[in-house]
């Protein structure tokens, strides 16, 4: 009985910790800067981070299966370059090119899926390989320097306009979030991701098509990386080989921060969304600090450099909070 309770309790507590972190961040940035909670800034927070959010959503099922996908950031670079070539060199409509780019992401995800599910190679090693492969392809296609720009305004609106008061791409994010939430929490496929994460052998013995379902998880991250690339190009107005560098780590940070076990099995989409919020708000707040004149120049420049460090600290503090609190209460209960 006690064991059963303790499997649930820390999970809730973890989400409480995250909400507390988010509230703290908001209070801090509101106090330090000005107009942090302004409508325009709030929508900026989302506009600038939707791509990472999409990756984090798609990464959740993969991590639930006990795997990882390090190639999503590089996949964005490849898809962005392909998108640029399809529009500029092949003169396709940006919308057709967008669909094709997502298709390229799907194929790339399929390559990961084949190597991991079929060839039974470790996900960390496979996606470390495709991490270099996809980025390398993108660089080769653009000879390292070429970039594509001057896309039609109707396409750029996807990254820069507002629809019903919210950034246009946020609506796509909502749709994907709902879709992946349904997938993870309401379908047999989602259930099987957990089962595979807890015990791949046990899942096989229960008749779950482990190979097929594992493949689907990696194909999904590839497709979503393609989508994220299209949105990024629309926001920046430029397609380059360096699109999405480091995004895979931010996405994994958000997922792990959200309480999904890196060993697979347990985790929620709600957690991932909270983890994503915590990361997005931190990065936005730190970027804005440079713009305010109340800080002298040194703090401003330092705050930008501290962004990575603070993201790391946030991850460690949030992950350590639950076990540390537990250890302290246990010690108190003893004495």
């Amino acid at each position: 009985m006690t064991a059963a309770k303790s499997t649930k309790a820390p999970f809730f507590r973890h989400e409480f910790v995250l909400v507390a972190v988010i509230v703290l961040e908001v209070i801090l940035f509101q106090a330090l800067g000005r107009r942090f909670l302004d409508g325009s800034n709030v929508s900026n927070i989302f506009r600038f981070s939707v791509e990472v959010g999409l990756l984090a959503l798609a990464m959740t099922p993969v991590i639930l299966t006990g795997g990882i996908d390090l190639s999503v950031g590089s996949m964005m670079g490849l898809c962005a370059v392909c998108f640029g070539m399809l529009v500029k060199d092949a003169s396709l409509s940006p919308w057709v090119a967008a669909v094709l780019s997502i298709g390229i992401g799907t194929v790339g995800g399929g390559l990961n899926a084949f190597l991991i599910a079929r060839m039974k190679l470790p996900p960390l090693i496979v996606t470390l390989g495709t991490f270099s492969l996809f980025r390398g392809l993108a660089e080769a296609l653009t000879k390292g320097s070429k970039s594509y720009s001057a896309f039609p305004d109707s396409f750029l609106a996807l990254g820069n306009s507002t629809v019903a008061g919210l950034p246009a791409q946020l609506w796509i994010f909502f749709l994907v979030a709902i879709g992946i939430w349904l997938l993870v929490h309401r379908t047999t496929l989602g259930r099987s991701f957990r089962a595979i994460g807890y015990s791949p052998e046990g899942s096989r013995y229960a008749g779950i098509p482990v190979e097929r379902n594992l493949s689907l998880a990696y194909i999904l991250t590839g497709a979503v990386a393609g989508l994220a690339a299209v949105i990024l190009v629309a926001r920046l107005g430029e397609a380059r080989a360096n699109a999405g560098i480091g995004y895979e780590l931010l996405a994994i940070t958000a997922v792990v921060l959200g309480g999904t076990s890196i060993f697979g099995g347990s985790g929620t989409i709600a957690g991932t969304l909270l983890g994503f919020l915590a990361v997005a708000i931190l990065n936005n707040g730190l970027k804005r600090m440079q713009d305010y004149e109340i800080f002298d120049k040194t703090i401003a420049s330092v705050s930008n450099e501290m962004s990575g460090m603070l993201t790391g600290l946030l991850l460690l503090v949030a992950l350590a909070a639950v076990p540390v609190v537990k250890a302290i209460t246990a010690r108190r209960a003893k004495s």
Partner: protein
Amino acid sequence: MKPLLQLSDIRKSFGAVRALKGVSFDLQPGEVHALLGENGAGKSTLIKVITGAHSPDEGTLVVGEETLRSLTPSKARELGIACIYQQPALFPDLTVAENIGLRLKKTGAFARVNHAARRKQAEELLKRIGADLSPDAEVRSLSMPEQQLVEIACALGSGAKVVIMDEPTASLTQKEQHLLFAVVRDLRKSGVGVVYISHRLEEIFALADRVTVLRDGESVGTNRVDDLDEAAMIKLMVGREVAQLYPPAEGEAGDVVLSLKNLCCAAGGVKGVDLEVRAGEIVGMAGLVGAGRTELARVLFGITPADSGEIRLNGKPLTLSSPREAISHGIAYVPEDRRRHGVILEMPIAHNITMAVHPVLFPGTWLRFKAETELAKDFIRDLGIKAYGPDAPGGSLSGGNQQKVSVSRWLATKPKLLILDEPTQGVDVGAKSEIHKIIRGLAKDGLAVLMISSDLPEVLGMSDRIAVMRGGTVTAVLPGGSDAHEVMAAALGHGGKEVA
């Protein structure tokens, strides 16, 4: 004589759960004292108190001359208490001598190792317990019982006066058990006290001098083994009379459900198996460990597909290349390794029970939580699964109840053929007879049951027919009432040679 170990009125609680409610226990030199009880009776907690892993809330321990409130693992070791676990904790890549040396002598990180002395010491210890092992053998290459012998050698080498053995025979073959028994008897002769834990009553009769029975965290009595018979012992354990150990066969066997002709699988070591299982019939499958029984089950369940030969189900020839395919044809397999293959311990039992019926219960992939909970509740009620509800994680249940969850998962598929692999391994006596009743009930309802078991009394008591495997093939099919000697003889391939 002064006891080696005396525990008085030991109490221990974990939160609201009172694991031990005043247990007293003593161990004399040169005695084998069995500790008996159902799963959850408090045996493991008591052992952990003796080895210093848990400190008791109340009570005293007297070890030799010292009276203590509690022990630590290092203090226990110092006082000569050693524990031999089911799964020996040795370094697989090191040799026997290195393992023994490491265990017995704590040296600094940069100290010089005297290999010759180490080897000599290991040799002497192995000789003392009569183990025919080379000190230079890598532990990886040893069988489980041989590894246990190494553990015992370590215990002796450390000058242990109290040796605790926790279900040492769980994974041993008959022959290996006899080897282990001989070692235990030697230990006794040399004045060592042995605390012996086992679910198998016949071992306790064969080996122990006294037996203490635990029930719900209390000791319900310490008796001389000679003063008890099997029924009395079971009564003490479960607190009620278990009227009949095995439910009687009922009804006639129906049509042939499964028929195998010259079935071969090189990868699984299955060589030319012929076998029939009829509806309403329990076919027990006996044989030594390594005879190919589990391997045959894995072929029938599509885990390691067959190379040649014929599998017919209800007369229809089948090829089985994945568990999913086997399930769709109506074959169910309750695997031997419950914790790895049978139940996902972290998942709620409702999820575990529905796992093999996703396509049927959730057509169109959407989960239906109400239907799932209903199904789980039905099985919890029908099979008498003790859990606080369908949401309880599999790992929170006792072994017997986990096994019932594993069986439920397969009954939910409404199979034609149910293959059970060691269905009562590591299950306490009460749950064991319940599982037997369930299996017999299923056969009565017309299911064809193939039951693999290394528990000979179980095979003899449950089976309508007994198939004996040896060297990857079925060497004999005996009628239900056969005696143990016939079955063992067939399993060993000896023409009627005495084995006991």
